[in-house]
């Protein structure tokens, strides 16, 4: 085999800076060979090393009485009592999904599932958070169709329900779509497994699919900006095989019932490299592996290719010495490849051999702990000022408020998402108590009375206008969604999608968003237990809106008290739970964007302390069974939330009549669509009114009785009204209509 000479240029092509290359040479005391260069480059890529984000990620609260595993492992784990816990994580597959939407999204699902079942948990739910370019962008239709089919193709086949998500369309994602996928699994405390390569002499076992030349450089690809040439990187596309992953899932869970293994980790980004080095690093050990023993799909693969391949559906296991037979029997039963490829050593060095010779020899700690950490310069760009200077009084008043209201209900952002979630099996495993379509999905935990509520949220317009406030709101909104189902937020995972971190203004967005999120987490006392960072979401220098998506996990001790967002029936009273204030918030609002074509202004004020109280109140009201429904107010404000509570009911639409809670001095369009935070629209039977108001008082939540459910009109007295049936049909067809799909 001809050795490729390693030069500083080659290092640069691998995404390593001159300083980083020097550092590698000084660590090794010599020039790295090509395989070693490859290993360093993927391990020190943004994707694996978090080199630009680490200093800021430390600001998140990650501890709490329920936390069994915080960030640093493949997934975070939070206790839900009764000896059970939930393991969960969110991850991005943005770049691969732009290049090949079906396979990119599919392998994104495959990857996040492995992250969760490698911890010993059985995945029971998926969420998808999607962002595409304008609905009329020539590529959007193709991308939406491909991404949704890809998620469906993988998730449905492996049998994990996709129970919720979100989708947005904005010009800023034209060239950089976001595909973030979240998985949650349930695990018994005593079955939790971690990625540790401990015990000198223990065998290192490769299981799953054979290795091919898939996605080599996938990890570094995720850390590079897009340019014209990215279309040429195509052969690195990985193809998902959900069937094999289903076998892998069952085999791994079967294996984890035994105590034959000491550690396990999936081979995700940077494949064999990251799994082997990270497992040894956590355990403070070393390893020796022989690449000739790696099951291979293609001929003539080099050590470089074998170490960097991102072939899917593979795991690395460290078993107890002498227990190999048990591992083999299980994987052979499930028709999967299994091979002992090496063993654990005690000297802290990773030694990789092939063809009888050493092909790489690297001190583990040098690759992991000594990875570069950057505190990159950050600066608020002056262009932010102009954004906040919008003169709202100059906005034209709509000629027909009812028509404007109806138009908002049918726009892609508000419209029914059924076209998407109908393609996902959201019922399999028979746990989904609240199906997609409400603020949060609720799943039962079989064998207990408990329920898990899930929601993923981020309003990136707010984040664009003020990343600190936007980050805070993302956390508050996801918590509110979960609380509207009656659950207590107990932990979250995030996916931080940003532009190029080498630009100070992007770094400013990033750190501000994190600080805002951290502030809100503290108010809720909700820990961040896992997450993911995706930088370089830029095309030709144009970045996306900062998009820190938040997936919130909530717990209901008694799932039978769960709530949904739609009104139950005639005669129920309608209340607005609010903070004590009457300002108008239109900065970054849906109304401003959709009707006036502007993303400007100051985003709504967020008061995490109030939000936390509101959530406690909602949970308490659910527990005392005081409510018929609870719906959080978000995009489109009170008017849109009211209409949603009327038309999203599975039984068909119903009307409601309420009064305008804002003072008359405020413009009617502003009052209707103002996006004040910390509000929820509630309904209850008249006989529970007194008890409900008393409960609100206990939590210092302002409650305004606005009206009642009934009739066929959705009406805000004296301002506007909609025919419930008509509104429902424009809402229902809005998404497919905007994208030109058949409903």
């Amino acid at each position, binding site marked *: 085999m001809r050795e490729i000479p390693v030069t500083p240029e080659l290092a640069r092509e691998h995404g390593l800076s001159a300083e980083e290359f020097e550092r590698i040479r000084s660590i090794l005391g010599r020039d790295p060979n090509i395989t070693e260069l490859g290993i360093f480059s993927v391990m020190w890529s943004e994707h694996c090393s978090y080199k630009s984000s680490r200093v800021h990620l430390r600001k998140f609260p990650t501890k709490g009485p329920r936390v069994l595993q915080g960030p640093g492992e493949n997934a975070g784990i939070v206790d839900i009592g009764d000896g059970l816990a939930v393991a969960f994580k969110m991850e991005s597959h943005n770049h691969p999904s732009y290049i090949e939407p079906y396979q990119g999204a599919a392998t994104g699902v495959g990857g996040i599932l492995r992250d969760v079942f490698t911890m010993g948990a059985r995945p029971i739910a998926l969420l998808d958070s999607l962002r595409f370019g304008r609905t009329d962008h020539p590529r959007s239709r193709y991308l939406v169709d491909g991404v949704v089919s890809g998620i469906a193709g993988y998730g*449905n086949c492996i*049998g994990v329900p996709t129970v919720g998500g979100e989708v947005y369309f904005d010009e800023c994602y034209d060239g950089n779509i976001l595909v973030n996928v979240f998985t949650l699994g349930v695990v018994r405390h005593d079955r939790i497994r971690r990625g540790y390569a401990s015990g000198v002499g223990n065998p290192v076992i490769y299981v799953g699919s054979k290795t091919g030349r898939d996605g080599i450089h996938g990890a570094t690809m995720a850390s590079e900006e897009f340019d014209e040439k990215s279309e040429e990187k195509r052969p690195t596309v990985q193809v998902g095989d959900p069937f094999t992953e289903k076998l892998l899932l069952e085999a791994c869970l079967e294996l984890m019932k035994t105590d034959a293994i000491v550690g396990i980790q999936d081979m995700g980004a940077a494949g064999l490299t990251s799994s082997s080095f990270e497992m040894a690093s956590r355990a403070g050990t070393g390893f020796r592996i022989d690449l000739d023993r790696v099951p291979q799909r293609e001929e003539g693969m080099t050590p470089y290719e074998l170490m960097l391949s991102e072939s899917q559906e593979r795991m690395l296991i460290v078993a107890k010495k002498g227990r190999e037979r048990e591992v083999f029997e299980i994987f052979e039963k499930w028709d999967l490849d299994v091979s002992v490829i090496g063993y654990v050593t005690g000297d802290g060095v990773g030694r990789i051999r092939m063809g009888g010779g050493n092909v790489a020899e690297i001190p583990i700690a040098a690759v992991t702990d000594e990875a570069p950490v950057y505190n990159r310069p950050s600066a608020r760009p002056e262009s932010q000022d102009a954004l906040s200077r919008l003169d709202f009084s100059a906005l034209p008043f709509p000629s027909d408020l009812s028509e404007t209201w109806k138009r908002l209900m049918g726009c892609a952002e508000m419209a029914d998402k059924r076209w998407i979630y109908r*393609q996902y099996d959201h019922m399999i495993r*028979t746990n989904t108590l609240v199906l997609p379509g409400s603020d949060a999905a609720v799943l039962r935990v079989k064998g207990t009375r408990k329920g898990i509520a899930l929601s993923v949220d981020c309003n990136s317009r707010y984040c664009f206008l003020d990343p600190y406030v936007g980050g805070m709101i993302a956390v508050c909104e996801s918590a509110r969604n979960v609380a509207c189902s009656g659950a207590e937020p107990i932990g979250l995972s995030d996916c931080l999608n940003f532009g190029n971190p080498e630009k100070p203004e992007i770094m400013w967005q990033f750190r501000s968003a994190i600080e805002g999120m951290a502030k809100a987490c503290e108010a809720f006392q909700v820990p961040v237990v896992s997450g993911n960072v995706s930088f370089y979401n830029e095309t030709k220098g144009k970045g996306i809106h900062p998009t820190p998506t938040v997936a919130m996990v909530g717990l209901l001790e008694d799932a039978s008290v769960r709530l949904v967002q739609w009104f139950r029936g005639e005669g129920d009273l309608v209340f607005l739970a609010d903070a004590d204030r009457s300002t108008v918030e239109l900065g970054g609002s849906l109304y401003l964007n959709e009707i006036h074509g502007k993303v400007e202004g100051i985003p709504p004020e967020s008061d995490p302390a109030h939000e936390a109280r509101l959530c406690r109140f909602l949970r308490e009201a659910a527990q005392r069974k005081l409510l018929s429904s609870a719906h959080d107010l978000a995009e489109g404000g009170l008017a849109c939330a009211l209409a949603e509570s009327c038309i999203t009911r599975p039984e068909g639409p119903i009307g409601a009549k309420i009064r305008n809670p804002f003072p008359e001095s405020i413009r009617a369009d502003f009052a209707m669509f103002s996006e004040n935070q910390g509000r929820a629209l509630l309904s209850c039977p008249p006989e529970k009114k007194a008890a409900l108001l008393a409960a609100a008082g206990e939590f210092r939540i302002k409650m305004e009785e606005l009206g009642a459910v009934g009739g066929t009109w959705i009406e805000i007295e004296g301002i506007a009204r909609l025919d419930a049936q008509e509104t429902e049909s424009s809402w229902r067809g809005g998404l497919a209509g905007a994208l030109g799909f058949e409903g």
Partner: protein
Amino acid sequence: MTGQAMKIAVLVFPGSNCDHDAYHALKHVLSADARFVWHKEGSLAEFDAAVIPGGFTYGDYLRTGAMAKLSPVMGAVRGFADAGGPVIGICNGFQILLEAGLLPGAMIANESLKFICDYKYIKTETSGTPFTRGIPENAVLRVPIAHYQGNYYADRETLAGLEENGQVVFRYCDAAGNVTPDANPNGSVGNIAGICNASRNVLGMMPHPERCSEAEMGSADGRRLFTSMIQWLKERGR
């Protein structure tokens, strides 16, 4: 109850994924003695009934159910059915029964070429099967579907035979029980959602009764199929 609960096999193929759901419904909701049976088993002799659950056996690669029909356990299913044992194939289980020739016809992709997961209504066309004996004819059930290939096809002759013998068990309909093109989610010929064999002891259906066997899941209509079957077994005796 004559003491012992009915012993029901829930077959497990590589890629089955509604196996746990069927097991849960039978065991925990209906208190039957449900057992998983691995696809390499060659006999069902000890069982009173067999369920072929939904899923993506062999990834649905090539054709749905194509590779699963070759598993050893399918030989046992054939023998079990020939001897009059009740067999119910749900979703992918239905597709396997078609591929194996235990039921006539074939499945092609939904007309929309999209996977569809949703609640639908089906009309019970006959009470003359072990699975529907407790459900009045024309009764409308609310049941979920979840499939990409549920577009039932049979040639004209086969279809005529099915209709004549009353082997069409369920058809997609609207909430009021009208069998209309609008109520047909996938393009199935004659709105067919489920059929049985000539001896009426093998049922294949695309909707998922195991997913709607408990009220808290949104509908308990599916439970009626399982209770019918268990009642039938009891009356038949061992």
